[in-house]
Every structure is written in structure tokens, then in C-alpha cells.
């Protein structure tokens, strides 16, 4: 017997080829029935066959069913072919009592009545349904016939007169007092019903599981014949049994080419299974929920085609997940009572009268009360969670690492009547809503009155027990107190502190806004614990894992699975903006139907991929029809018997389903070699899906040009001219025309407005003699521009922003150039404005005439757009006066006044500042526009434009002052000349050692370079050529103003 990590105990019985299994009502004896033998196995020693009864029948035993009534618990029936045998087990003897025959075809189902212990029903495809009384085996107590044969017969669990039968897709409800005709017909499914089950909670509720992939729920008390709701499983459902606790439903899919699709659901919230049982290596043939007595946990017993019995303990979290919570919390109040009555409860042969004191399960049933509720049912609804038998196992394994606290000491102590906290209800509510079906987590105790919660975490190598107590004020900004009370040696001090820190942070985060924090804390805790134990077990594996351990493989699987919990589910579609304005889209191809989980949502973590494979090995909806009957399918699988490798979930398997199960399993069988523990990543390594088939599963990548819906225009970027002093108006009108061709009408208006403004480099014109105010102070000056900039900022039109910033450049290089000119009065044919003519008078004349024209135009435009009426009036009148002002030309001014060299702000500097059209204190902001625009331009490879813009940047920009830039730390401290040679000779071994950076495109020059022998500026040969086609002065933004010699 091996105890796996998931709490499963496996008991292999390789010599029993049983087809059917049943556990007696006390949970003591398991019968496995095969053609040859009946094997009786003690529940407590599942590896050992207690008794073997030879049958040597030529028929398979299709059903073996213990009598569920405790008074008759020694009886069981077996059905085979047309007969039903009754057996009695009196330890150690198994006696065949009698054979009930009457059916003329195979008995398709049999069921013991739960109310009349002597009665059972059988049905067959011969159209008859018989009720038998074991006291009178000669003839059926009742026989009724239908037109269609029944495949299922099930007694109501409360009403001794009521039973249900399934006929293809229809359900009939019978009242045996009127055996002639059914009391109700329900048209339930479009295809065959595989299983029927009545609810443990509500008399009138039953569920049907069908080949049509759904489990539907019916209420026979309603006139309406629609199903209350359904669980859509996406695969034919072979079994769907209500859990004897809570609102659970255990479902078994029958297409088992992937690992066993046995899942537990909460029928009140059936979007996702509460738990998936995925340890099985083959088809699960039968399963049953068993509990020996109230001190034990519920246990799911499965019989698998791999000839093993498996025992899955339902931990507290699972019960909560199934809505068995109310019962659990009740237990707090009733524990004391339980302890007292324990002895009498152990006497199972008679129903102990005390149990009637216990609250009837009507309180847990959401659908109403039941008068007929038997005492026994209320037994079944009790759960006892505090005992964790696995802890015992573990402590003994670890040689008493867990300083012996017996399970009983974890039991809730005496009931406390007084409530301590101010908000016990709120806490109670939180506990009730708590979903603790988390990996590795075992909840031991939740006590509302004492405001504590005790739980433990267990993995293959690690164990931790946590005590949480909730202060009275919780959750109003009061953090619960977390304390580890026990741990295994494998959990280091460091990791405990880390876990505590996580818990406290998470709690703090939630209670700060008065939210309850327990569940988020537990989620964080389990996730981190899983990750921790993953890492740990990986590190430890070599010494701790014996190599011949047959379960090494299972450990690997489990660990990988855990790791996946924290990894987000892969993104299979998306859209990414590229840096040039293209949108790159990748999607799943359109011809494939996406995965539809019951919630319609894509799961969040990668682990879902694995559980998806296990829980929903579904065929596309259209294929269900072609699936043969359960039995034939079982046989086809029998032959292949895949060695399962569940650690390799294909991402695409989530979206695409294989059509032929046997084929897939066969392929997987021989394509995947066992891997190293650390290597078992979930990948697409199953390359059985060959490229030609696969690539149609992979969507194309589509690139969409979205530059047209950007606020900036690529076309304009290449066409725009920066209005310089010399050709200010022309450039503006050029830009206007370009905007017009691009249909950007607001920009057309903008540029026509700007063209009417005075040349910003000549705005030192005083408005009048008596006003010492520059033009920029008028409403058309700075206020107008800042409005424009505000507007285009909102539009994120960085292009227009940068162009405006360049046009109304704060720091026209003029002042610097005047210095240069003064020191070296070289005649230049190109400059920023003042030097185009040596003949100063001509220049002056020109600028005056320009300004005349401008002002007239502005007043027209100004009236047109009519800003605030007062200012427009004042201004328009003033503007007409402008031409009268005698030209104190900026040219003159600049030539007359040498720029100050010292740091005291001179009158000149103040004036220079005042005449700026842009706000002077946000200089950096304008530079940021230019930088951002340059960045975009360089993506579009408009390098010349970038250089032009950069020349208009203020000097704070981090631009290279040499033709090369070295990105190498080793070279950074060297002098420029040294760097140059280092670069040339490539003495530095760095692969990123930038040789030279082109001044135009700001990129390293790998190919032909050209540079000026005077100023050492340069770049790509073609870029430099392009630049000097239109310019004569060095492109360096440092304004070296060198007339470069290339």
C-alpha cells in the first residue's frame, strides 16, 4: 500500500479482474466481483483479500450491491445475464441464498430500496421492471412493463413507494402503489441516460447523467418538466452520483483515453469541479463514497481497470467545497454531544435513538425540509473533520518529529457559549464562505466562538501546522495572529519567516480596508508553500528518493503540477503595438472552436491545463454521437493501456481535441521517453502532432498599419520644414500645404495662423515706443501658444508639439552665433537668420515689410476667431498702430549689444527672455517634446529630420559631442582621442563596444563612415552625404558651426 501525496491510498490487486465493486454500508467490506470470483476485502486492510468465493460463471457480474440498510447489511445481490443472486455474508462465510430469475434479457440495473430493507428492484431491456422481496424469492412482488426497456432503476432515498427508471433519454417516475403506469414522464436527454441518482437531501430531486454530455437535475415535485439546471461536461457522462454529504456530485466520464475523468462538483456552483481525481492509470469502473463511522472522514473508494483499489480521503476543504460546511460548523456546537454519544453510535446494528436529537439535515438542504427523513440519513450527513489519520502516518514515518499530539487533541474543545468578539457573525460568515479546497491544505479546526482556526500544510517532504487567531476587532484593521505550532525539519527557519511575512502582508493589505483576509491568506500560503516544497524537493531529491521507488514517477507529476499553480495560463492571442505604429496581432486560428469551460472563462493558471486534460478530455461537441456504447469503448481502451505521462500538457491541447482517443494514447505511448525529474516541463514535446497537421492549429501573425490613426502623420514628418528665420513664412505655408494634402484640416488652420505670426526670431520688435513689452506678451504671443500646446498635448500630437517648439524655439542659436560671428566673422551662406545678407539694410528692410504684412494678417485672423472680446478689441486697434513703430531691428540690436559673459542677468538677457514666445520656465518640457518626436522619427528612419530637430534643442540634451560614442565602461573614462583610437582598433573586447555613433541616426556605424577632419564629427557616409546636400554646417547639435571638410 502506498500513500501518495494527494492523500490517495492505492491497493493493487493485479489478479482480480473485477467489473463491479461495492462497499457495505458500514464501510467495512469491499466486494469485487469478476466472472470467476467474488473477492471480499477488508476496508482497513485493502491489500488483503479476506475471502474469495469461486463463481466460475460464464457471465460477467454486471452489478454487485450491498444492502444499504444497516439492519440488513449482511445481504448483497449480484446480477449477471438475466439473473440476480442474493448472498449473505456472515463472517467468515459467504452463502448464496437464492437466485431471482424472471427477466428474459440481461438485467441492466438493480437497486436496493433504502426504506424497505427487504426489497430490491431490477430492470432489464426486456421491458420489465421487477420488485423483489428477499423473503419471497419465487416471484416478483411487483412486475410492471414498459414499451421501452429500462437501463436504470433507482429507488428514492426517502420515499419507499417511489422509484425512477431510465429509458433511453427519458425518465419515468413510478409510484409502486400504482404499478400500472408511471406517475411522471420526463423527457430528459437527447441521448441515452447512463445513470440516475436520487438526492440525499431532497426527496423530489434526482439527477441524470447522459451520453449527451450533460448531467441534468430534476425536481419531481414541480409540474414543469424542465431540468432545474445542468452541468455541461463536454463528454459523455458515465456516472453521476450525489455525494452523501453536502451538495456534491461525483461524476465519471466514460471516455477515458486520457487519465480518469473522475471529478467532484458542487451542484450549487458547478462552474468548476471542486476536485479532480487524477491518479488513475486507466478507466475507473466503479466508485463509492464510504465512511466507517462518524469519527472518520468520508472516503471515496474507486476500482480502476488498472486493477487497483484507491482510497481518496475527503479533507475538510473538499467538504466545504461541496457545501457540507453548515454541517461542519454545526459540529462545533455538537462536539461535546458527540463525544458523549460516541459509544452508542458505534453500535450500528440498531439506529441509536440519540442521533435524532441532532439537527435534521433540513437545515443543510437548500431546497426545503423533509418529513420523511430517516435517522440514517442524518447519520450520513454528519462529518467529522478533525481527525486526520494521515498525520499519524506521517509522524510515525518521521520518527516523532511532530511532538506527539494525538489527533484527538485537535478536536474542538468544550463548547463556549459566550462570544468574545464584537463581530462573531461576521467571522462566522467568513468561515462559512471559506473555500479551502486548496492544494496541500488540511483544515483541522474552525472555531467561531474562540475565534481561532487551525490548519496544516503537507507535501511530500514538508509539514507545517498553523494556528491563526482572530482578534476581537478583526477584520476592522486588526490583523489575525499567525503562528506556526509545528513543522517538519525540512521547513527551514527562513522559509517559515518568509511564509509568515507573506501572511502578514496579505492580511494587512486586506484588513486595512476592513476586508476579511482568511481566504486570500490561505491562497497565498498554499501557493507559496507549493512553490517552496517544489524547490525543496527538487534540491533534496537525490538523497531522499530511493531510485527504485515505484512512485518516483508520481512524485514528479505531482510536483510539476504544483509548480504550475503559480504560473499564469499561457497567452494564446494578443496584440502588440510595435514601435513604428504597426499593430502585431497573433491569434488562435478561427476555424477552431475555443475551449468552453462551464464558466466560459479561460483559467488563470497553467495547472488548469493539466486538470483540464484530466477532467475534460472532451471531444468536440459534434463527435459525441459517434461514440459507441460504454462497454465497447472500455474494451477498446483495454488493449492500449497507455502508460500515462500527465506531466506534459500541450498548450494546444486545451483548444484542440484529438478525435481518435486510441490513436493518441498509442502515440503518446511510444513518443515520450521518461524524463529527468527537473525536466518535466509541460511542453509541446509530443511531436506526434506533425508539422503539417499542427501548423494549421497555429494562427498567422497579422501586422496592421495603424499609423493613420495615430495623432501624428508619418507623411508630414518627412515633408515638414522647420520655419527658420529666413524663410519663416514660406516654411509655414509649405507646412500648411502639406497638411492640406494629408487632409489634416486643423493643422492647415494652425499653420496658416502660425504663418501670420511675426517671425519668432525677430519678435524683439517693440509694440510701441511707450510700451516696453515684446510681442510675446500680447494675447497672440505666449497665451496663444500655450493654449495651442495644451490642446495638442491632450491630443498627444507630439509632432505638432515638437514643430511648434522648434518654430518658437526658446534658444535660437542666434545669440551664440553672434558670438561666433564676432570672433570669426566668416561669411556664411547658411545660418539661422541674421547672416544671410551681409547687407544689413536689405535685411532690415525685408523684415520690416514682413512684419507689416504680418500684423495686418493677424488682425484679420484675430477678428475671425474672436477670442475674448475685450482683448481682441484692444489688440486689434493696437495692431494697426504697429507699422508706425520704428523698427528697432533685432539684427541691429544683436549686433550692437554683445552678449554678456558673466552670470549676472543683464538687461539683454532679461529682454531675451521676455521676448520668447514660449514659456521660458518649461524649457525642458519643449525639449521633451522634441526628444519624443525625434525618437519616433528615428524609428521611421527619418534621420535627417531628426538631426534638424536636434539642432533646435536646447543644450541640455545629452547628445554626443564627438562623432563617436563608446558604450563601453572600460573606455568611458578615457579622453576622446584615446576613445577614438580604442574604437578604431577595437582593443576593447566588449561586443557592445560602439565603434562610432552616427550623428544623423544616432546609431553605431558598422559600415562606411565619413567624418570631418576638423571637428571630428561624422557618421554613416550616406547620412552625411544626405545632410550636406542641403546644409553646409556640421550637423552636430553642439553648434560647433564647423564648415566640415569631408
Amino acid at each position, binding site marked *: 500500500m502506498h500513500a501518495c501525496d494527494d492523500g490517495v491510498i492505492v491497493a493493487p490487486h493485479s489478479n482480480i479482474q473485477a467489473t463491479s465493486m461495492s462497499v457495505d454500508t458500514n464501510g467495512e467490506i469491499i466486494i469485487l466481483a469478476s466472472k470467476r470470483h467474488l473477492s471480499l476485502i477488508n476496508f482497513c486492510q485493502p491489500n488483503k483479500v479476506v475471502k474469495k468465493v469461486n463463481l466460475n460463471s460464464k457471465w460477467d457480474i454486471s452489478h454487485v450491491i450491498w444492502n444499504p440498510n444497516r439492519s440488513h447489511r449482511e445481504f448483497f445481490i449480484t446480477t449477471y445475464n438475466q439473473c440476480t443472486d442474493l448472498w449473505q455474508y456472515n463472517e467468515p462465510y459467504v452463502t448464496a441464498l437464492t437466485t431471482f430469475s424472471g427477466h428474459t434479457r440481461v438485467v441492466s440495473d438493480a437497486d436496493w430500496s433504502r426504506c424497505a430493507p427487504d426489497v430490491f428492484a431490477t430492470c432489464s431491456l426486456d421491458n420489465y421492471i421487477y420488485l423483489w422481496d428477499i423473503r419471497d424469492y419465487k416471484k416478483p412482488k411487483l412486475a410492471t412493463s414498459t414499451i421501452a426497456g429500462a437501463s436504470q432503476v433507482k429507488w428514492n432515498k426517502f420515499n419507499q413507494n417511489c422509484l425512477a427508471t431510465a429509458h433511453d433519454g427519458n425518465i419515468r417516475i413510478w409510484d409502486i402503489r400504482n404499478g400500472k403506469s408511471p406517475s411522471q414522464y420526463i423527457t430528459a436527454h437527447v441521448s441515452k441516460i447512463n445513470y440516475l441518482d436520487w438526492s440525499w437531501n431532497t426527496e423530489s430531486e434526482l439527477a441524470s447523467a447522459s451520453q449527451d454530455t450533460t448531467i441534468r437535475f430534476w425536481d419531481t415535485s414541480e409540474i414543469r418538466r424542465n431540468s432545474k439546471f445542468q452541468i455541461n461536461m463536454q463528454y459523455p457522462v458515465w456516472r453521476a452520483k450525489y455525494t452523501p454529504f453536502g451538495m456534491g456530485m461525483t461524476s465519471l466520464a466514460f471516455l477515458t483515453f486520457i487519465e480518469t475523468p473522475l471529478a467532484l462538483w458542487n451542484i450549487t456552483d458547478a462552474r468548476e469541479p471542486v476536485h479532480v481525481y487524477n491518479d488513475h492509470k486507466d478507466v475507473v469502473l466503479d466508485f463509492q463514497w464510504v465512511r466507517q463511522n462518524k469519527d472518520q472522514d468520508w472516503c471515496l473508494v474507486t476500482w480502476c481497470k488498472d486493477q487497483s483499489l484507491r482510497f481518496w480521503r475527503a479533507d475538510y476543504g473538499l467538504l466545504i467545497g461541496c457545501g457540507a460546511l453548515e454541517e461542519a460548523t454545526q459540529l462545533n456546537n455538537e462536539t461535546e454531544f458527540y463525544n458523549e454519544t460516541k459509544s452508542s453510535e458505534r453500535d450500528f446494528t440498531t439506529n441509536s435513538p440519540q442521533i435524532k436529537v441532532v439537527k435534521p439535515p433540513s437545515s443543510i438542504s437548500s431546497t426545503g425540509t423533509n418529513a420523511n427523513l430517516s435517522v440514517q440519513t442524518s447519520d450520513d450527513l454528519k462529518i467529522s473533520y478533525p481527525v486526520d489519520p494521515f498525520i499519524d502516518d506521517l509522524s510515525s514515518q518521521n520518527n516523532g518529529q511532530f511532538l506527539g499530539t494525538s489527533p484527538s487533541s485537535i478536536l474542538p474543545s468544550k463548547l463556549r457559549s459566550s462570544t468574545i468578539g464584537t463581530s462573531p457573525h461576521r467571522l462566522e460568515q467568513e468561515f462559512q464562505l471559506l473555500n479551502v479546497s486548496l492544494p496541500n491544505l488540511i483544515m483541522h479546526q474552525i472555531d467561531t466562538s474562540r475565534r481561532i482556526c487551525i490548519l496544516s500544510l503537507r507535501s511530500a517532504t514538508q509539514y507545517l501546522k498553523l494556528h491563526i487567531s482572530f482578534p476581537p476587532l478583526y477584520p476592522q484593521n486588526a490583523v489575525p495572529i499567525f503562528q506556526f505550532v509545528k513543522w517538519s525539519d525540512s521547513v527551514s527557519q527562513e522559509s517559515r519567516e518568509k511564509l509568515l511575512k507573506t501572511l502578514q502582508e496579505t492580511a494587512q493589505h486586506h484588513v486595512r480596508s476592513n476586508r476579511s483576509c482568511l481566504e486570500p491568506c490561505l491562497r497565498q500560503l498554499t501557493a507559496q508553500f507549493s512553490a517552496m516544497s517544489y524547490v525543496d524537493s527538487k534540491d533534496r531529491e537525490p538523497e531522499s528518493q530511493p531510485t527504485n521507488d515505484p512512485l518516483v514517477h508520481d512524485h514528479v507529476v505531482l510536483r510539476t503540477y504544483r509548480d504550475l499553480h*503559480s504560473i499564469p495560463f499561457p*497567452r494564446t492571442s494578443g496584440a*502588440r503595438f510595435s514601435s513604428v505604429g504597426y499593430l502585431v496581432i*497573433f491569434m488562435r486560428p478561427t476555424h477552431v472552436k475555443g475551449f468552453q469551460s462551464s464558466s466560459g472563462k479561460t483559467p488563470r493558471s497553467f495547472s488548469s491545463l493539466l486538470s483540464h486534460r484530466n477532467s475534460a478530455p472532451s471531444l468536440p461537441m459534434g463527435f459525441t454521437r459517434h461514440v459507441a456504447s460504454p462497454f465497447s469503448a472500455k474494451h477498446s481502451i483495454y488493449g492500449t493501456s497507455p502508460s500515462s505521462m500527465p506531466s506534459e500538457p500541450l498548450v494546444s491541447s486545451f483548444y484542440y481535441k484529438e478525435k481518435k482517443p486510441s490513436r493518441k494514447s498509442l502515440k503518446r505511448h511510444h513518443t515520450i521517453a521518461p524524463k529527468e525529474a527537473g525536466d518535466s516541463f*509541460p511542453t509541446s514535446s509530443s511531436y506526434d502532432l506533425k508539422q503539417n497537421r499542427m501548423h494549421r492549429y*497555429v494562427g498567422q501573425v497579422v*501586422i496592421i498599419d495603424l499609423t493613420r490613426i495615430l*495623432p501624428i502623420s508619418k507623411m508630414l514628418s518627412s515633408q515638414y520644414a522647420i520655419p527658420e528665420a529666413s524663410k519663416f513664412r514660406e516654411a509655414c505655408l509649405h507646412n500648411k500645404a502639406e497638411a492640406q494634402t494629408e487632409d489634416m484640416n486643423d493643422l492647415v488652420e494652425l499653420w496658416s495662423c502660425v504663418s501670420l505670426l511675426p517671425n519668432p526670431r525677430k519678435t524683439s520688435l517693440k509694440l510701441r515706443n511707450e510700451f516696453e513689452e515684446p510681442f510675446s506678451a500680447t494675447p497672440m504671443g505666449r497665451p496663444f501658444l500655450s493654449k495651442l500646446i495644451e490642446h495638442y498635448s491632450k491630443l498627444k500630437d507630439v509632432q505638432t508639439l515638437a514643430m511648434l517648439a522648434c518654430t518658437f524655439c526658446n534658444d535660437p542659436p542666434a545669440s551664440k552665433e553672434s558670438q561666433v560671428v564676432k570672433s570669426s566673422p566668416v561669411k556664411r551662406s547658411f545660418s539661422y537668420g541674421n547672416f544671410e545678407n551681409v547687407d544689413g539694410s536689405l535685411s532690415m528692410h525685408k523684415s520690416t515689410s514682413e512684419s507689416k504684412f504680418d500684423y495686418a494678417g493677424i488682425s484679420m485672423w484675430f477678428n475671425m476667431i474672436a477670442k475674448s472680446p475685450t482683448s481682441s478689441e484692444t489688440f486689434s486697434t493696437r495692431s494697426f498702430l504697429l507699422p508706425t513703430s520704428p523698427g528697432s531691428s533685432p539684427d541691429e540690436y544683436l549686433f550692437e549689444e554683445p552678449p554678456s559673459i558673466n552670470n549676472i542677468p543683464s538687461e539683454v538677457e532679461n529682454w531675451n527672455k521676455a521676448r520668447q514666445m514660449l514659456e521660458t520656465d518649461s524649457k525642458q518640457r519643449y525639449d521633451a517634446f522634441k526628444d519624443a518626436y525625434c525618437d519616433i522619427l528615428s524609428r521611421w528612419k527619418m534621420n535627417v529630420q531628426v538631426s534638424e530637430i536636434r539642432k533646435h534643442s536646447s543644450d541640455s540634451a545629452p547628445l554626443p559631442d564627438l562623432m563617436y560614442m563608446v558604450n563601453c565602461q572600460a573606455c568611458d573614462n578615457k579622453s576622446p582621442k584615446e576613445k577614438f583610437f580604442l574604437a578604431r582598433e577595437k582593443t576593447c573586447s*566588449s561586443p557592445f563596444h560602439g565603434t562610432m555613433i552616427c550623428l544623423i541616426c544616432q546609431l553605431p556605424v558598422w559600415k562606411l563612415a565619413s567624418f570631418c577632419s576638423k571637428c571630428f564629427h561624422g557618421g554613416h557616409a550616406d547620412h552625411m552625404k544626405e545632410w550636406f546636400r542641403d546644409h553646409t554646417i556640421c550637423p552636430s547639435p553642439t553648434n560647433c558651426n564647423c564648415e566640415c571638410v569631408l
Partner: protein
Amino acid sequence: MVSVINTVDTSHEDMIHDAQMDYYGLQLATCSSDRTVKIFEVKNGTQRLLTTLDGHEGPVWQVAWAHPKYGRILASCSYDRKVIIWKEHDGHWSKLYEFNDHKSSVNSLSWAPHTLGLAFACGSSDGSISVLKHMGDNQWDCQKINNAHSVGCNAVSWAPATVPGSLIEPPSNSYQNNFVRKIASAGCDNLVKIWCEKDGQWIEEDKLDGHTDWVRDCAWAPSVGLPDSKIASCSQDGRVIVWSSSGKDGVWTSKILEKFEDVVWHVSWSLTGDILAVSGGNNKVSLWKEGLNGEWTCISEIGKGQSNSNSVCD
């Protein structure tokens, strides 16, 4: 208005998880569950497979191009806990560096703005974020933010290097000082966190709390020189949130762009930061634009079946 300029048949053998174009929009890198990264040249509606990069041992989640001034460099991160830096030399791609220090899947990777040097950040399911800076000679200096997000970090995104807030401050002498090193990260703790490097240490500057489930992606909007910062984030809960900060007080305000039915996986900003592309589990892409009034509207939706057609609605 918009047109499909290229359709690339990647011939990947399994699901594609990311596709990114380089700085100039000339080359496309894709990565897939088939453990490979492929690089295509896309020009004038044609495609040419330049190379297939093998080296990862698990699904490759994300690829990212470095700025071309450092050469043609591509980084990829994978389930196999590795980040691989690839470099082209004379048309030949090779592995330049392998970063192997994460304990779980590396989910996201982002290059720093080029003005900060050759550096990148990556976030892993082990909860930590690593910031690697190239120190020359293929030496990478690693700074680690441990426990950045409990359970796991799903995405990282660098802030633009010029942080608008600093633009209002008086200009300092050294322009370099105005650069900021900030990262936004998204994690399984339902938070977006903002990290800032101060004196060589990464410290948590802010925590943006608005999602109710794992945050799958976050993206810092590119700067166009405006003083406000924006971060878009999207989550398992279907919400897309745009966080904005005026830059003065450092307070982030949130605005829920939309709540989708299914998980949202990606948010991506256009280069001017005015359009947000949103995509998720429903296999659809929608484009959102911020109007002058600050409201976000959906301007386009590209869904199933349209990806093969030659136009999308506007």
C-alpha cells in the same frame, strides 16, 4: 483607415505566445510553445524566415528587442526559468548570454529605455524580479527584487526614462540625473507595484490596488513629454485599468476602462500613448482611445474571423 500590411505564416508547431517587431518595424520575432523563437523579415507584404532560435527547454513566453544602438539584440524568456539574450552578428544569430537564476517560469521581460544603457528586467513565477545591466564585456550585473509579488510576478514594464515629473523641476546641470529608473510590475497578488531605483537599491514606491484577481499584464505608457504618467493593467478578472499620475504629488488614480467577460492578457500602448490595444482569452483585440474629455472609447474591434480578412473596421 487601417490596413493589413502583412500576414506572416509562422509555421510554429504550437501556440504562439508573443510577437514583437523591432525598432524599425522591419523584423518580426515570434515565440511559441514549441520552444523556439523565430525571426522574420517582413517587407512590402512579404515574409522571409531569417532564423529559428533553439535553446529554450520549455514554452517561450515573451520576446523583446533591444534598442538598435546596441546592435541587433533579442531577449526571450521561458517556462524553463531562463532568459536568453540573442545577438546577431553578420546575419548570424547566436546566444550571447543566458540568465539562469530564477526558480520558476520567467513570465515577462522588458528592456530599459535605451538612454539608461543596455539593461532589462524580468519577472518570474517565483515572485521575484531581476534587473540586469550590461557592464561591458558580456558581464551582466544583476539586482534582484525578492518577493516582489507573492506567488508570482506576471509582467514587468519600464517607465520612460524621462519622467515627466522632473521636467517641471529646475534643470539640473547633469542631464543624466534627470533620468529615472522605474519599473511597473504585475503579479498574482492582484497588485501592480511600482519600483524605483534609489542609490542602487530597488525600492517599492507604490502599490496599485484595484484588481480582484491575478494581474496579467501592465504597460507604462510612452512619454511624449507631458507631465503625467499612465500605466495600463489588465487582469484575470477581465478588468482593464488605466492608472494615471499627474507627476506632482505622486498619487495614482485609477479608471476602469472596461470589464471584459474573459481574462485580459495584454495591454499595449501605441507609440504616442493615446491608443491602447487590449487582447485576451476571447481571441479578440480591441483598440481604445482616450478622448479630449479623458473618457476612453472603443474605436475598433478585431475579432475572430477578421484576422484573415484584409481590413478591420475603424
